[in-house]
Structures are given as structure tokens and as C-alpha cells.
């Protein structure tokens, strides 16, 4: 079953998990590492040199924290309900997203549309380029060697590991992002959703469905 969750069939205890269900990562209360020392020193020097301020660093973190897949989901739901918007999104996803008030920055965003016979999935084999303005920070697996190495070679097998088993008749297109050009998948609107509002539709759009490693939820 395609879904965004991180609990892919492996039973585990939620003990020691954060409220979002992830293990806590060593932070303020564990032994200081060399790289943490470097971060602190670098940040202090940048502030002293007038390159940035502590307020600016915090504001940037706040921006990052405020971005979530809900942004992308709103764009997808609009495309499902407004054919003119869908057309504009496919022509220029940066401008179409800006139309909805999302800050896309200078990057070129390309929406790739899933159809009855074609499924799209995105990767960055070079590093970790991701439509972070619409989806937030990428999941850990997106940045992993395994995903980046194998998706371009054996996409069907990799998608299978996400629980997405597509028929052999479906063409899979893998899109390799770059720093300046990023992709977002426009998934197909699920059947049986004719009566839903744009807001209700947005709730069906999962993060993974916009990466291409999943499909939207179906209405209950």
C-alpha cells in the first residue's frame, strides 16, 4: 500500500521516539563532535564578519521548518480541479507555484504528470536536489546511496521496496534533478473523487506521491 509513513512493515517500539515517530538524533545533550564544533565556530565567525546574524540563521531555520509536503499537495489539488492551472503548471511549475503564493526562489521547477501508462519518479544522483520549497527537507532515504544509485538502473525493484508495484505495461520515467532544475510529480487524480473539494483532495496527496515513490491515498 503506497503511503508516506516510515514504518514500512517493520514492527518497532515507539520508545525513544520523538512525537513525529522518529528516533531522536544526538543533539544538545550528547558528547560534542568535531563537526558540531566546526558548525559553531563557522557560525560565530560568519556573524562576527557581518556575513549573517543569529536572527537571520534562526529565520532561515523557521522558513525551513514551515515548509512541508502540504505546500506541494495544495498545488497538486489545484491542478486536479482547475484545468487552466494544470496547463500552466505543466508549462512552468515555478510560476504556477508562485501564483499560489509559494516562494520558489530562482530555481526552475518542472512538473511531470503521471498518466494511465506512464509513472514518473524523481531522484538526484549528483547529491540531494529536491523540490524543498514545496515539500520541505528531503527524507533521509532520498539522500541515501542506495536510492540514488539504484533508482536509475532498477526503478521497478526500488519502487517495490516502497510497496509500489506497477504493472509491466506501465512506463517508468526517472528524472534526475540538478541544483538549478528540480522536478515534482503530478500524480493522477484517484478515481472516485469527483465530489471532493480542493482541500479534501489535497489531503489525499502524500509526499511520496509527489516524489513518485508512492501514489495518492484513495478516499475512505
Amino acid at each position, binding site marked *: 500500500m503506497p503511503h508516506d509513513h*516510515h514504518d*514500512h512493515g517493520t514492527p518497532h517500539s515507539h520508545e525513544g521516539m*520523538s512525537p*513525529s515517530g*522518529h*528516533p*531522536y538524533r544526538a*543533539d*544538545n*545533550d*550528547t558528547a*560534542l*563532535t568535531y*563537526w*558540531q*564544533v*566546526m*558548525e*559553531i*565556530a*563557522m*557560525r560565530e*565567525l*560568519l*556573524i562576527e*564578519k557581518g*556575513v*549573517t*546574524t*543569529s536572527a*537571520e*540563521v*534562526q529565520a*532561515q*531555520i523557521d522558513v*525551513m*521548518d514551515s515548509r512541508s509536503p502540504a505546500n506541494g499537495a495544495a498545488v497538486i489539488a489545484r491542478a486536479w480541479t482547475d484545468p487552466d492551472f494544470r496547463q500552466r503548471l505543466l508549462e512552468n511549475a515555478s510560476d504556477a507555484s508562485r501564483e499560489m503564493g509559494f516562494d520558489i526562489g530562482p530555481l526552475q521547477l518542472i512538473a511531470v504528470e503521471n498518466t494511465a501508462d506512464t509513472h514518473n519518479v524523481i*531522484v538526484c*544522483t*549528483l*547529491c*540531494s536536489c529536491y523540490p524543498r520549497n514545496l515539500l520541505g*527537507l528531503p*527524507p*533521509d*532515504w532520498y539522500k*541515501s*546511496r*542506495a536510492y*540514488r*544509485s*539504484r*533508482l*536509475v*538502473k532498477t526503478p521497478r525493484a*526500488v519502487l517495490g*521496496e*516502497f510497496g509500489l508495484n506497477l504493472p509491466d505495461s506501465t512506463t517508468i520515467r526517472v528524472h534526475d534533478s540538478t*541544483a*538549478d532544475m528540480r522536478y515534482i510529480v503530478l500524480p493522477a487524480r484517484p478515481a472516485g473523487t469527483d465530489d471532493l473539494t480542493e482541500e479534501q483532495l489535497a489531503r489525499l496527496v502524500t509526499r511520496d506521491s509527489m516524489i513518485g515513490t508512492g501514489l495518492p491515498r484513495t478516499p475512505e
Partner: protein
Amino acid sequence: MGGRDAGPVDLSQHDFALWEKRVDALMVICSSKGHFTVDGLRRVLEDMGEDAFETMTYYERWVASVNQNLLEAGVYSIEELGRRMEQVARRGATYGEAAEGTADA
């Protein structure tokens, strides 16, 4: 690394620590102000070689790369960095203690 062999995709996820978010923020701020480019970030990451992917975490590789780019751009010197890292390391045994006394604490 596209096309190479590798094991199954690990789908587990961790919450980002404050220091990791700060590295990300500093990358965005410094590159948007023209101190280096994303290509510069990636060049250093690729120069680290394959071992770095096994021995360092994602944001450890990033902080190393951002730092290298800032040194190359002359934003601060290796001596300034070395002195500051020594001072920071002496402040305490944890990230919280070491980050204290800064403008952010």
C-alpha cells in the same frame, strides 16, 4: 553515483538536530549572498571520495564542504577557524554547552 550497485533503500527517518538545521541554514544564506555556489558545495562533497559516505553523516559532509568553500572564498582564514574551534571545544562536553556564550545562546 547513478547506476552503481547498492543494497536496499533504508526507509528509516530521523528528526533533524539543531546543529544540522544550522548547517543547512548557513549553506542557504552564504550561497544566496554569493560566497559560493551549489556547484562549489558539490565539488567538495565529490572530492571527499567514497569513504566519506560510509564514515560521515549527511550534514557532517555538508559542514565540511561549506567550511571549505568559505575558506576558499576568503571569508575567514584557516587560522581563525582553528583558533575558534579550539575555543569552542573548551567550552564544554556537549553541543549545548559549547554553543553557549555565542550570540545564539
